[in-house]
């Protein structure tokens, strides 16, 4: 059924469809990021495709590849009952320049999914109406689902939020945590911690003489 769609896509967009496969029954098309929006538009509007249900959008991080991220989108058609997965590769190995067009104009459901992908991977969706973090808080540093983000990394404590915020929500001075967070585990490569540990070791050497010396 949706083999037909893959055929349609290659016929319509030619070079922009980089590869297609149907591994395990999931029809997949890898799309050039430049024509991401056009392909999405075509899939939504063309009668033979009519993918009106927005199912999922996410990304996968491959730190060793050159376009580093793979943006993966799953679609379904309610009338025809077929599904397709479209992917696009963006970003250089340092994680910079990961940008792709937003498809919120085509499916409103993409809104939160794109925000989540932005939050988790730092991929910017051009033309998104309200691109801000969704699962994490605004002060969060880094993109947690990237492979180079250590799972046990500790985030800095947050100051009280100050200043005027025009946007919803109305953050006031009563926001934020007034108490510190207790941790028992520190990130090993954190420069501050490395320094503190070295200092502590030095001290312990001074106060506790080795066995032979006494």
């Amino acid at each position, binding site marked *: 059924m949706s083999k037909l769609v893959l055929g349609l896509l290659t016929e319509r967009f030619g070079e922009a469809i980089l590869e297609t496969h149907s591994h395990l029954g999931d029809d997949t098309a890898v799309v050039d990021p430049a024509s991401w929006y056009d392909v999405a538009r075509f899939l939504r509007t063309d009668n033979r495709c009519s993918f009106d249900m927005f199912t*999922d959008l996410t990304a996968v991080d491959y730190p060793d590849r050159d376009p580093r991220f793979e943006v993966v989108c799953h679609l379904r058609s309610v009338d025809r009952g077929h599904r397709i997965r479209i992917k696009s590769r963006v970003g250089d190995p340092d994680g910079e320049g990961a940008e792709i067009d937003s498809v919120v104009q085509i499916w409103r459901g993409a809104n939160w999914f794109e925000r989540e992908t932005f939050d988790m991977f730092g991929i910017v969706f051009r033309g998104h109406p309200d691109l801000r973090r969704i699962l994490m808080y605004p002060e969060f540093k880094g993109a947690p689902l990237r492979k180079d983000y250590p799972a046990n990394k500790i985030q800095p404590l947050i100051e009280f939020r100050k200043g005027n915020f025009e946007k919803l929500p109305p953050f006031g001075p009563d926001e934020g945590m007034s108490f510190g967070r207790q941790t028992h585990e520190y990130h090993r490569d954190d420069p501050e911690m490395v320094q503190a540990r070295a200092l502590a070791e030095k001290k312990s050497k001074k106060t506790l003489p080795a066995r032979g010396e006494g």
Partner: protein
Amino acid sequence: MEPIDQDLDESELELPAEPMMLNMGPSHPAMHGTVRIVVELSGETITKADVQIGYLHRGFEKMCERGTWNQVFPYVDRLNYVSPMLCNVGYALAVEKLLGITVPERCQYYRVMLGELARVADHLTCNGAMAMELGAFTPFLYFIRAREMIWEILEEETGARLTHSFGRVGGMAKPPTPFFKRMVSETLPVVMKLVADGEKLLLKNRIFLDRLEGVGAISKEDAIALGWTGPTLRSTGCAYDVRRAHPYLVYDRLEFDVPVGTTGDNYDRFMVRGEEMRQSIRILEQSLEQMPDDGPINVDDPRIILPEKQDVYTTIEATIQHFKIVMEGIKVPAGEVYSYTEGGNGELGFYIVSDGSGTPYRMRIRPPCFAVVQGLEQLIVGGMIPDVVPTFGSLNMIGGECDH
């Protein structure tokens, strides 16, 4: 004596006219989950709303990248903590699709039955909690009593009431207990009766109906565009049920109807859930007859399934096999797969990327709640403050699932 309001010119009066900001949540007694809704009010009407989620984010996807494939089961339990069995089965099916294996027939029926029990419990919780938030505490107790009975079956089978961790790749942790069928067949009529009694208390109640009918309505096109699935989508009139549209396990052998609503308001969502419980019970009754009483529960593949404990202690082959599975994990062939099942709230999808090792390379869950809660803003803007409570309740947001 002069009248007091003699010089009063109404145009000069400075009435406070700026919109009021109100913060509902993150922790609110009448809220269904941990979510924060910032609303801008004009009088009592909501003119703008911002739904903020993420308060229950625990990094599910990141955690999954650190363990073996079977170590994911306790995490998926905590996604939808109202119907964990559906998540267990959904995840197991996803990995099995990538492995290219099918579990034996008896296990398929077992999974269907446990899953449908969980679905009934899920809908009972949603409908009961929604009624309770509107002040109807008694029906809530009826529903919770019914849920308790279902949980007792699940406890008997899995050893845990809520976080079962019962699924395994290629089967289940344990075969059904000898009294499983009897327990189910004896409990179902009682559950049916409690559901009927609870609904009877609500559906003739003027206050309850007034707060549901015509409130929080959404069109079919909007719901589809927002990515809604499950009971909330079906309440708008779109009969999309994964069990019917893309049958998995043995759903193609079972007879059931897909109830749909017409207007997509709170009342329809309530009724669709109520009817779905009855359909689930129908599925359970058929499965009771069709499920074979003996036969294997797990696939016969020593690379996937742990050997018997007795063999691990007595034979070297089983010891090695046990060690390999526990220490290195199951080897899942490299590739990617998107597998979807009907969860309690709609299409529960798992997008899995494997690099051929014993650890998932990327585990993406497509939580049905996430798309549904996304539509909340549209539902409540233009309505009144008290309408937020039943509308939000009928969407059945499960924080663990929505926030990953």
